[in-house]
């Protein structure tokens, strides 16, 4: 597989970041997941974190070397995450179950498969045209479907944050599954939370990502979205993938998985450190951890080099 991938999560103007994002890939399969947690105190962060970790762990267990049934994997994992959040709340007798949205995508054998719960979105663009997307499980989306409001009213609507399906909570989630969708080189996949899509309309996203290399456009999009979010901007997260070799840039930015060993995975979980959360347990670093930290920093330097 060859692709160019970017991910970032930002706090926006909020005190804490309740979004979590991750991707992981082996030689022949790629998973991307975005979760936007909800609930008081640490609840939202915990929910999103549990969801994303569960996806990554199950993926690495089941992709041997590829998933037998990606859509079933997506559905099962969503249900397990839902159950895990319930038992977590029970275990710590939390008043409010931690809840989260989730959108996840699996690409293997040249096909994309996606699933979602809530209002975190997936877009699939081909030559700047939207050819696949999720439909929010939200009150405003319902109003749009009923023709009561227009699509462009969604971002500003007072009820825009009301979703009727999520992981965690009392009712079982509604999980939407996509079709098995063939990909072509140059297709662009986008996963994002409402902090991003509510300020960057889909046609603008399409324009950014088809006119510039992903590693240039995506960070610029995040900056712009955060700016537009202004002083009460929400957390915003984005994963972008350009399928196939990157042709828009002359610097090497394409991830090539053919050289990976069978059973090997590369994983990036965005560690969205909360500003106030700096009290982690003190522990000695092992040599191995030092090496890993250094190589991570070096790859970040490479990635953000102009």
């Amino acid at each position: 597989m060859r692709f160019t991938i970017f991910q970032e999560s930002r706090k926006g103007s909020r005190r804490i970041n309740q979004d979590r994002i991750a991707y992981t890939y082996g030689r022949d399969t790629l998973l991307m997941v975005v979760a936007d947690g909800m609930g008081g105190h640490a609840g939202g962060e915990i929910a999103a974190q549990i969801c994303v970790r569960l996806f990554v762990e199950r993926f690495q267990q089941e992709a041997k070397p590829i998933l037998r049934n990606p859509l079933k994997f997506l559905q099962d994992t969503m249900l397990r995450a839902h159950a895990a959040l319930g038992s977590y709340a029970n275990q710590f007798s939390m008043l409010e179950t931690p809840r989260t949205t989730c959108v996840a995508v699996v690409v293997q054998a040249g096909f994309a498969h996606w699933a979602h719960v809530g209002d975190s979105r997936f877009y699939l663009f081909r030559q700047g045209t939207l050819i696949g997307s999720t439909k929010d499980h939200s009150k405003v989306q319902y109003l749009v479907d009923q023709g009561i409001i227009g699509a462009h009213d969604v971002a500003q609507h007072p009820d825009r944050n009301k979703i009727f399906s999520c992981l965690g909570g009392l009712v079982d989630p509604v999980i939407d599954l996509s079709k098995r969708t063939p990909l072509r080189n140059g297709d662009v996949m986008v996963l994002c939370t409402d902090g991003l899509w509510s300020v960057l309309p889909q046609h603008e996203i399409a324009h950014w990502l088809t006119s510039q290399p992903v590693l240039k456009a995506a960070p610029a999009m995040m900056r712009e979205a955060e700016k537009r979010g202004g002083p009460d901007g929400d957390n915003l997260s984005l994963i972008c993938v350009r399928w196939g070799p990157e042709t828009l840039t002359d610097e090497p930015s394409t991830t090539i998985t053919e050289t990976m060993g069978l059973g090997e995975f590369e994983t990036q979980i965005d560690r969205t450190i909360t500003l106030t959360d700096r009290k982690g347990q003190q522990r000695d670093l092992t040599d191995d951890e030092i090496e890993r930290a250094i190589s991570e920093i070096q790859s970040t330097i490479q990635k953000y080099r102009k």
Partner: protein
Amino acid sequence: MPVTNQALPGGYQLLNYRIDRQISRGGFSIVYRAFDDTGSPVAIKEYLPSSLVLRTEGDVVRASSAENLTSFRYGMKCFFEEGRALAKINHPNVVRVLNFFRANETVYMVMRYERGRTLQQQIQMRQDQMSERFVRHVFMHLLNGLREVHTHKLLHLDIKPANIYLRTDGSPVLLDFGAARQTLTNTRPKLAPMYTPGFAAPEQYRDPDRLGPWTDVYGVGASMFACLAAFAPQAADARVQEDHLVSAKKIWAGQYSDNLLEVVDWCLRLDPLERPQSVFALQKAIRDIPPKKRKLSILGNIKRVLFSEIRA
């Protein structure tokens, strides 16, 4: 006799960098000027917390005790955090990290070398008042950089004129990411940061759970104050006991715009909630320069005259 750490000697070959000379030495690190293999200058920061490790000769760093090794390694984690965060920030007003590596049993951060001097030196060298234009210029640009820092989930926590570098073309660069050090404070007193009195916000002394963008905003306010006064404002811990700080608006009335002075006072509020809550809010306040009210200036003058008469 206090033992000090030896700096790497000039000419020392560190990976593909040749050390030229030591630029500065702080509690946590030594900064060198060096040249890379193309001969371009770079600045290299060597992690070397002076209370924990020793290098009395040679190049290899050794912890001064087994217990210190743990703290040394732990502090290294914080140096990594700094590197990790800075690596993501590619902004003209934030020092750029070029490389990061391990050698001599410690770690090194290579930065783009900047020519110029610190704002601290600039303040000390100047004979006359700094112009409003200059202050605005430096801080507007600096705030762009700081904003980028905050959006990457990092607090600086040590904003002061000594950590603001002015390039020869006048543009500012934010140096020295103290944020990582914050992690050190809670458990290991040995690595406790040296808060810079006058520039650290009150919550940095008392209430580490309340750190936020407003904490850096305090440092910005204090630095602006220092530009006008050529000295630091009263230290925040003392202010909490008994606040002697006279508002900028009183001290420099008429010499700088009300807007600028109000912004300085706003940033220096003791209650974190009363300060601008984000760099964005602060920039907005600075940018909203009230139009020069020519028509109203007579009124302003009257007020000023009245005020000085009352004081007299």
